[in-house]
């Protein structure tokens, strides 16, 4: 160790230094780019390239780099919260408006102030949806809502009421042309997202709203008489009733039933359009019909928005990006090219609707819609409400199921 080991120690030191120097080179590069600033954006892979291309101009104008990283959309919220906690979150990310409450309660996003002229170009409801406690937390760019897709060969006319649709569908089923009246996903766990259209049409409600339109978690309506009456109406079409709504239809088979011509009507979303075009079915899009003589059916509207992460090292540029670029018509149209979602920027929407009749039809179907509540309490309702709805469709006692769902939710949200 004393004498002969000297060269060996020297060699180890030399290799260590060389290797560190290589690593150091990388770190230096990192340092340079930090000086040059890299704006990191998280997006789902479908839109990543479009955002990258659209952001290139922004990058050039401001002398920065933009790095767009693709994550599965459903993972973004959870991953972002964990990354934020660990201090390596992106500067900007794409998300759904109903995440807002949870993002805010975890202190993970920055409020955004939109200049009045920019705000004026966006649909008012979209801004309301991203408003939380009087603050805007993200910049909306697209919206989506479910609608009724019908097989125009089997059912040429758009039904005005749910009853009319059931009548047409039942005739087709009895004549053996189809095997189902309607393909609407329920599943064993229920699907409160889709069911909301019928639920609201029959007068049910989830949370009350104050005068300013803020959701009020203290006014939980799941176990209310109105909601129970609404589900009783829905139960008439359940497995023990007309058999139109069934738990065996899930999000895994609902689309194929329609594409194969087994169901003339399909409660679909914008994500089904591409496959529907491919399936060769001659389809038409119309609003989901409400019950006769009741409220119009009100599907949930989901907005997709760009958020700025709290604590972002590039928050000045990130804010600049979301306020002045995301609201820009050209940027929205570029994104539309890559991923055809209905824009909330009114100018872009007009342009797009003129070209694509589907977009106009989806917009019409969403006219009676309501933004999905964005309060964190909303997250606690999905599971219990879904289970109750599935049980009711399976023939369970309506009052019992809704009241126990109400109790579970109330306990979870601390009331």
């Amino acid at each position, binding site marked *: 160790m004393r004498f002969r080991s000297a060269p060996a120690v020297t060699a180890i030191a030399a290799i260590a230094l060389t290797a560190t120097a290589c690593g150091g080179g990388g770190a230096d590069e990192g340092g340079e780019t930090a000086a040059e*600033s890299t704006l990191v954006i998280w997006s789902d892979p479908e839109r990543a390239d479009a955002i990258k291309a659209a952001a290139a101009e922004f990058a050039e104008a401001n002398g920065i780099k933009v790095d767009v990283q693709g994550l599965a959309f459903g993972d973004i919220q*959870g991953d972002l919260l964990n990354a934020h*906690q660990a201090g390596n979150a992106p500067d900007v990310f794409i998300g759904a408006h109903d995440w807002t409450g949870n993002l*805010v309660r975890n202190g993970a996003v920055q409020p955004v102030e939109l200049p009045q002229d920019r705000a004026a170009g966006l649909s008012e409801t979209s801004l309301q949806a991203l408003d939380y406690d009087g603050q805007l937390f993200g910049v909306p760019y697209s919206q989506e809502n479910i609608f009724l897709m019908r097989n125009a060969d089997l059912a040429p006319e758009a039904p005005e009421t749910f009853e009319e649709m059931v009548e047409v569908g039942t005739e087709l089923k009895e004549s053996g042309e189809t095997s189902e009246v309607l393909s609407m996903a329920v599943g064993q766990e229920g699907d409160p997202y889709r069911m909301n259209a019928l639920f609201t049409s029959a007068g049910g409600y989830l949370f009350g709203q104050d005068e300013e339109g803020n959701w009020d978690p203290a006014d939980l309506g799941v176990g209310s008489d109105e909601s129970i009456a609404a589900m009783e109406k829905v139960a008439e079409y359940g497995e023990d009733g007309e058999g139109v709504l069934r738990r065996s239809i899930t999000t895994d088979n609902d689309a194929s039933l329609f594409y194969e011509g087994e169901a003339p009507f399909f409660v679909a979303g914008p994500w089904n359009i591409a496959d529907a075009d491919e399936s060769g079915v001659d389809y038409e899009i119309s609003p989901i019909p409400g019950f006769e003589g009741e409220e119009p059916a009100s599907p949930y509207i989901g907005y997709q928005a760009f958020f700025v992460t709290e604590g972002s090292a590039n928050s000045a540029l990130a804010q600049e990006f979301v306020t002045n670029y995301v609201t820009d018509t050209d940027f929205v149209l570029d994104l539309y090219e890559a991923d055809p979602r209905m824009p909330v920027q009114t100018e872009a929407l007009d342009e797009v609707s003129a070209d694509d009749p589907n977009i106009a039809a989806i917009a019409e179907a969403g006219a009676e819609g309501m933004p999905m509540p964005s309060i964190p309490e909303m997250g606690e309702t*999905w599971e219990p409400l879904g289970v109750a709805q599935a049980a009711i469709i399976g023939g369970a006692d309506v009052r019992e199921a809704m009241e126990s769902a109400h109790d579970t939710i109330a306990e979870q949200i601390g009331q």
Partner: protein
Amino acid sequence: MVASKRDDGAGASGPGAPARPHLPGGRFAGNGSLVGQFAKIALLGLFTALGVWAVLPLYVGDNWWGIGLVVAVVGLVYWVYLSKRAVPAKYLLPGVLFLVAFQILPVLYTMSTSVTNLSDGHRGDKQQAIASIEAYSVTSSEDAEEYTLTVATTGAPENGALVFLLTDAEGRTYAGTEEGLSELDGATVEPSGKVTEAFGYTILSPTQVNARSGELQEFAVPTGEGTGIRSSGLSTAFEGRATRVYDEACDCVTDTRTGVVYHADDERGAFYSEDGDRLAQGWQVGVGFDNFARFLFDPTFASSFFTILVWNIAFAVSVTFLVFVLGLAIALVLHVPGLRGKVAYRVLVVLPYAMSSLAMFLLWRDMFNTDFGLFNRILGLEVDWLGDPWSARAAVILANVWLGYPYMFLVATGALQAIPRELGQAAQIDGASAWQSFRHVTLPLLMVAMTPILIATFAFNFNNFNAVWLITQGGPFSPESPTAGATDLLITYTYRLAFNEATAQYGYAAALSVMIFLIVSVMSVVSLRRSSALKEVD
């Protein structure tokens, strides 16, 4: 260093030290080849580099504990590989390091999480919560002035005092500093309202502004009691007011609009008002064994927990038992000497094992569909397989047995072939029936090889997440307990708590994970003990 090894050994043992005994490892232990020496030097060099690479970010983050740990590990590696005394450690160290890094640390981390309230709304520390509460309460009134912003400085672009050059709707210009707002004359203003030149100020480029994002977020030009002009992006500024203010003296947050005072509750990790309303942003605090108490003693949670635990054990036991019986039975049938087409049969039997289990579970799920599933169509039934608790449980077990038995068959076949046929023949000569010779000769010998595998199968199925999640997602759920499904295993239940759409409850889920860990460990230890007892009897 090994290169220096002579009789005086590697350490600092002085002249006259007794000759060292021969080390285990024979000729490989001491005088390695030249190539070996170089490989060792290179690997140690690389390892040192790895250590330096790990230390740098820790140093930047002022994490002295982390640096100490890295130094200690590097030192340990050096000591083990340079010392001649630690030959066994040379073989053990890499495995031990990986064991610590990937097994023990996660378990310890889960344990430490299980005694906190880590969940949505309680992720960060108190300072962060206060910062968010204050930042989120800044609101601009409807008629507040909106300015076009140009960020400038009176000093160097990197660190000079920030100044907001503001242009209002009428085109008047102002300079805003931390002291307040003053009129600005003689500035050159673009039509957009951006200031391009102003005497005495250096205009910052977008990149320069961005580099000071942190300061910018804190920066506000005071304009009155509690109001200030804050930036939004690079080119707009608004007058706003923070409506919620933290006061250290009372450790409370006051809402200046409503006058409600929220006091910090360090036991629950949030600010609560007198009426029990809380501010959404909380912080992480230790809650002791509350999470454990919740599922062990709280009536609602305990009933879910124990129902799931009973089903979980029943599931693991029945799946293990059934795959063992089925696998062994088929192995015995195909073990008959002189059977024709043995290879073909074996391939057929092993097929389920060769397919992707993920795809198979989804296929099984579809086969159980009430209206469109294969079972009901073929059998002409209308059973709601996955909608009824007992049929769903049967379905999950059935699918899992189908996927699991080929493995048992393979192992049993191997074990059977290792048992000499003479033993069975001898038993038959002694007058034993076929059953007796199987029961008393073959089976005990078989169990020696099979017991550890049965224990492993049990432990695996105890936490068989895929089998349940892909077929039923834990369902069916009853409206009375919509969070605990009839086929839920502890692991799927835990997963739903930690990662579902509702509030993520990491602390509570970690407590459940610790519980699962304890249950599986105890069961494994007990059965391994019992199996070694079995061996001694043999």
